[in-house]
């Protein structure tokens, strides 16, 4: 139920006063409410659930976390 999917903002627009974004998930584009992200910009990665963007994803935090995990796994014993 709480599944949320990361996608990339391609376009920002309004529908009857509601702030929306066109968000690309791989090849699929969907309309997503961004009332929850006042500063969202085209190109941002957002996490989408039930038609609303929950948060802007921190891609650099993701890369750093993976790098640390991979290093620890390479080190074997300390993983």
């Amino acid at each position: 139920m709480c599944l949320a999917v990361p996608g990339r903002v391609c376009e920002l627009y309004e529908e009857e006063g509601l702030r929306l974004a066109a968000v690309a998930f791989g090849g699929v584009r969907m309309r997503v409410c961004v009332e929850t992200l006042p500063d969202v910009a085209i190109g941002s990665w957002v996490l989408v659930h039930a038609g609303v963007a929950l948060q802007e994803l921190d891609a650099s935090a993701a890369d750093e976390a993976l790098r640390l995990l991979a290093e620890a796994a390479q080190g074997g014993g300390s993983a």
Partner: protein
Amino acid sequence: MRLVDEYRDPHLGRALAGRVLRSASRAWTIMEVCGGQTHSILAHGLDDLVAERVTLLHGPGCPVCVTPLETLDRALALAERGAVVCSFGDMLRVPGSRGDLLGARSRGADVRVVYSPFDAVRLAAERPDLSVVFLAVGFETTAPAVAAAARWALARALGNFLLLCSHVRVPPALDAIAGAAETRVDAFLAAGHVCTVMGTGEYEQLVRRHRLPIVATGFEPVDILEGIAMAVAQLEAGEARVEIQYRRAVRPEGNPSARALLEDVFEVVDRPWRGIGVVPGGGLALRPRYAALDALRAFPELAGESPREPAACRAGDVLRGVLRPPACPAFGRGCTPEHPLGAPMVSSEGACAAYYHHRAGDPA
């Protein structure tokens, strides 16, 4: 998919499981409270990877499963009175005391699956001749979409859009489980996307009260194993803190705009959780300024019904982590996804369905 596939790397997963087994000096019990995590654990066999030292218990992490019978009965009654009832797909097959919404649809009622509550608002705007009711269920993850849709519908002065609101809040349920004598939980994995919205402030209070670690954790196998490793590290060090494993999506303050939206539209209320009973502060209801959207206000005759669960269903014990699904006498016999007795066997995220799909024939 970027930001997903990397967290399914089996090499990283095995390294993390090894870290858990090496660092645990004794057996620990950790509970996750998220149906998505439950399914990830069983689908990838994460419980087996750490079984020597860590028992994983599954908490009430499926909002569909804890939606009270009376809410389902009210939705059914609204559909039978000619309203268009819209909800997320999972809700349609959950049995109320008189059958499910899918059954009502087969008898001619207008019941629709929508991807988002905004689609239900659009339907109401396009079809002023219809009375559209959105059955709003879900944790704090789902509530912002419903709050934004409520605000949109009110601003557009649509007279034909109503909400049957049954949102639930996670922290009060954790509070009840941590304080119960029947379950011995050493640490919790908190549901990542609930924390994406709400942040970790409410969990700081729980950690202080119950002295156990809470780790806000993501949904992919590497996320869950790292969350377990972080919880075990705290337990071994005798610590009890809130930690964030799911750093790419969770900040301590959550999403302030989403929280402000929830605060504007909803108030905290006591709410019955199916199988668990009334959870103090366990629900969200529309604030008085949104009363025009409240389906129970529009149809007051629906309030007040409180039906009983079928006696053979032990969903309550499963949801509290007291009973493993395969140990239920009805599991796989009287109760299957095709003919469910209770919601955890229906929902794609219910614990009973997770065992049924991923562990058929697993001994209790």
